[in-house]
């Protein structure tokens, strides 16, 4: 059967990849055209023809009560997802939760509320930018983290629309080796550091600006982001949840908290028979081998390695902090005020070829350039602190990640790594013990004729 199916599937893969590529390109152009309506309005006629321009009106925002409702809906989704994954252990129900998450939080709510983006609100408030964090946003940020702390990453499985849409397009997953997956996963740590740095300095909401799927949910957005989202979706057909595993900054927080969760995904309800079927079924590389498979090193060699790593971590932190400090000027350019000040400065000092729209708008305010320079200097001063902190964070993350892999953990049987597992419940369906237990529950007579684990060789 597989032998017949393979060539045909290959064709399908290519057909889908081509179709999605074209789709993303066209959708990019479409999005760009539609976004133009919002960002760069069509210019008014530059001659007088007697036409009376309509009065500008401001669209009313959504009803204020939606914020509270959104928080309640988020909590309900989290509770239901946790119940379906951990109690019901149902892949089918989890799949439909995924569909619902894309439909509601994605297409209906158009990507907002978003716990992933809310981490920037928290950073902005913590950075002392005069921003008061609404309690609803606090809860949007905290609820998935609390659930992760107690029951693992159920937010990723059936609530987050970004993860859900990638999960839905998963077609033929490729298993990435750990030596590729783990280093690539560090990008998310860097992204988190930058997102916090830019938000805390009041410069930019990087995560929202580069949200790859919000353009699809809104049927509008910058063309490069629509294309980026489309490329991620095509990749997600073969590499499960590319954004979640290698880019999502919020997943870093979820991972760190999920390690401490007491109730979490357990692949088999009884003793593991080491069949490795769960490992094959997991498209996200979240299954860890039993300790016996990982082999033993001599305690002395292990101690030497850990000691060396522990000595390296501070060096790495200091080195990257230094680089961060020297990079502060370039990093501060993410801030609009700094970029505008650079353009105004260039115009004032003969370095600009012609006046730009933004500098003209600035001059039209009547604000002296010195005020702008002072504001830019304040931002640069914040980056002088924040950029080395970012370097320190990256040194700690890289060193700590390496250290965590050196430490040998005792595992009996194949287990889901609580940090990497997105609680999708696929492994349940592949576990022969799980299936036996289900059959026994459904048919008690079945239990009488079978000892659990008897078909371990399946």
């Amino acid at each position, binding site marked *: *059967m597989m032998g017949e199916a393979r060539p045909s599937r290959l064709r*399908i893969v290519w057909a*889908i990849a*081509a*179709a*999605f590529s*074209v*789709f993303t390109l*066209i*959708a990019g*152009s479409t999005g760009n055209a539609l976004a133009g309506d919002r960002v760069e309005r069509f210019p008014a*006629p*530059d*001659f007088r*023809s007697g036409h009376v321009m309509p009065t500008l009106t401001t669209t009313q925002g959504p009803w204020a009560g939606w914020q509270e409702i959104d928080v309640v809906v988020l909590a309900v989704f989290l509770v239901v997802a946790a119940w379906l994954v951990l109690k019901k252990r149902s892949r*089918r129900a989890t799949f439909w939760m995924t569909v619902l998450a894309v439909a509601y939080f994605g297409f209906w709510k158009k990507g907002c509320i978003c716990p992933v983006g809310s981490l920037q609100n928290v950073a902005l408030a913590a950075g002392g930018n005069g921003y008061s964090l609404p309690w609803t946003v606090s809860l949007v940020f905290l609820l998935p983290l609390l659930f992760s702390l107690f029951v693992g990453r159920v937010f990723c499985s059936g609530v987050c629309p970004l993860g859900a849409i990638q999960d*839905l*397009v998963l*077609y033929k997953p490729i298993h990435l080796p750990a*030596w590729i997956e*783990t*280093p*690539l996963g560090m990008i998310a740590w*860097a992204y988190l550091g930058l997102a916090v740095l830019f938000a805390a300095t009041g410069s930019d909401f990087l995560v929202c600006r580069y949200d790859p799927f919000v353009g699809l949910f809104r*049927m509008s957005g910058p063309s490069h982001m629509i294309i980026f989202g489309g490329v991620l979706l095509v990749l997600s057909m073969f590499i499960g949840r590319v954004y979640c595993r290698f880019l999502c900054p919020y997943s870093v927080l979820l991972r760190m908290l999920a390690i401490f969760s007491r109730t979490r995904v357990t692949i088999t309800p009884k003793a593991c028979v080491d*069949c490795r079927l769960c490992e*094959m079924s997991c498209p996200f590389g979240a299954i860890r081998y039993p300790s016996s*498979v*990982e082999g033993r090193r001599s305690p002395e060699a292990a101690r030497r*390695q850990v000691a060396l790593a522990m000595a390296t971590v501070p060096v*790495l932190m200091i*080195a990257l902090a230094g*680089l961060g400090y020297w990079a502060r*000027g370039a990093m*501060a*350019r993410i801030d609009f005020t700094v970029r505008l*000040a650079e353009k105004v400065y260039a*115009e*004032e*000092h*003969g370095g600009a*070829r012609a*006046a730009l729209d933004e*500098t003209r708008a600035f*001059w039209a*305010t009547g*604000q002296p*350039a*010195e*005020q702008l*320079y002072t504001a830019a*200097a304040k931002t*640069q001063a914040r980056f002088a602190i924040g950029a080395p902190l970012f370097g320190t964070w990256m040194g700690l993350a890289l060193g700590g*990640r*390496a250290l965590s*892999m050196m430490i040998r953990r005792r595992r009996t049987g194949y287990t889901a790594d609580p940090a990497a597992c997105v609680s999708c419940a*696929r492994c349940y*369906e*592949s576990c022969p013990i799980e*299936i036996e237990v289900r059959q026994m529950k459904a048919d008690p007579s079945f239990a009488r004729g079978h000892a659990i684990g008897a078909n371990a060789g399946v």
Partner: protein
Amino acid sequence: MTSAPIHLDLQSDNGRRQRARCARRIGYVAGGFILLVAAIMLVTIVREEQDNPLTAGTIDNLKSSLIADGTNESLKDSIRQADQRVREVYFHRRTFLMHGAWLMLGGALVLAVSMKLAANWGASAYTPTGPAPAGHRWGLAMKIGMAAMTVILGGLLAALATSSSRAIRFADAARAAADDGGDSKIKTSNPATTTVAAIDPTAPSDEEFARNWPNFRGPGAAGIAIGDYPIEWNAASEKNLLWRVPIAQSGKGSPVIWNDRVFLTGGTSDRREVACYDAATGALKWACPIGAKVSAGLELNEATGYAPASPATDGRRVFAMVPTGELAAVDFNGKVVWSKNFGKLANLYGHATSLVVSGGNLIVQLDQGQAKENLSAIMALDAATGKPIWKTARPVGASWSTPMIVKSPAGPQIIALGDPWVMAYDPTTGAELWRATGLGGEVTPSPAFAAGTVYAAVERADLLAIRIDGKGDVSKTHAKKLEADILPDIVSLAAYNDRVLLVSTGGSVTLVDSKLAKTVWTQDIEGGFNASPVVAGSRAYLTDLKGVTHIFDLATPAFKELGRGEVGQEVAATPAMVAGRIYIRGHHELFCIAAERGAK
């Protein structure tokens, strides 16, 4: 929708395969549909792009033609039609793309669902593959992978660190701007630390400046023309009229001449510009916008307009400043070389002081607000780059007069008027040389200079005659007040030997002899004046608001009109007089008067 099942029901295996095949075919159809919609959208976008008047430059070309021929109604209709078409194309494309996007999204949904079903129905069971390969996660490959990622991230930071060396330190820039004029509290620059512009050996010589009309009232802004000029002309009969051309934008600024080019400023609330005309034919060579398109809330009274100041040129670039606080240097091909913006200026009627050029530097007198607010300053900018050379605070409020450059035995001086001071500055360093009190109110008339004496006057104050060889406050040592029948309110002074000519807006003209300290004659002329007199030899050329230029002799003991020229429309700008030609800016036309053109 579930993962691959472990226990397949063999009896239903064929059924699953058939369903998978069916789902795949649906997926193919959906994929084909997406590609078809995509192709149609692409073709439509490309065709509309080719037919778009906005991108094809049609409208720009039409607009350029309209600048040259501003009264062509059919041209205006063509622009309107093209503009209408641009809008129709835009909104058609928008609707079309929206429909296409929805169709493709629907197709993508069908494709995703069908392929997902095909994958599930066509999947085979997982089968055990034996024990996992032994080995620790922290193996050699992982070490290399993590090291590579560390190098990549470190490398990116290093690359950013490298580009950071070019970043501007705005803490320093803010301090510099405070000294440079951005701050409302302007400080006097230290002459010892002023920047010196690089000396360009190929820059036009003083003789070339003297042969041209580089700024308001000619070389040094003195109001003195060299050469012989016609004393009669008539635009209606074309007597001594070399050419006349319509002016693209209205304004009060005077023409500025450099060899074969005539420069004019003009503007409305929508656009300020400097335009260049051919001195030989009057043909418009180019018009370059100055500053932002919209004047953002700046409302000026009609008398001032949006281009009250004259441009200035150093023979390579033309400089123009408009009341929005925007200043631009434009090369002789109409391209902006550099620009500055001084922000919204605190000026009741709008900033109208003209720019002057001195020794390769552009002199900008920026008097604003009240004296106690410390907003006013005079500065020199490098004409080539716009870089500040020096800046000196001025203890005066807003004024509208233009500074002049005079030559003393000790070197050139900049004479700038304000309330209440007449002040002299060193053009090289900006250091104050001397000051004399005696002016007051709204200081608008520019000074005059002759025989080592500066003359300054303003209505409801005094006529001052100040010798320029003093230092410090020379109010009691080098300045004397002269009696005069009338004092000017707008029109600048003109001087001939010891005589100074004073003109009121209402039409009174008086000549005062400073040596004898008495009025030589007074004459009322109908029409009123905004334009300032220009002296050529002993003749004064004074153009009234009706466009009649009165030519009279300043050497005679009584008023004696030598001739009269008419352009037949309102004139508020001072004429430019170069090489036997007189360039007069009328309300809507520019005239060139020259004796070589005889009467028809």
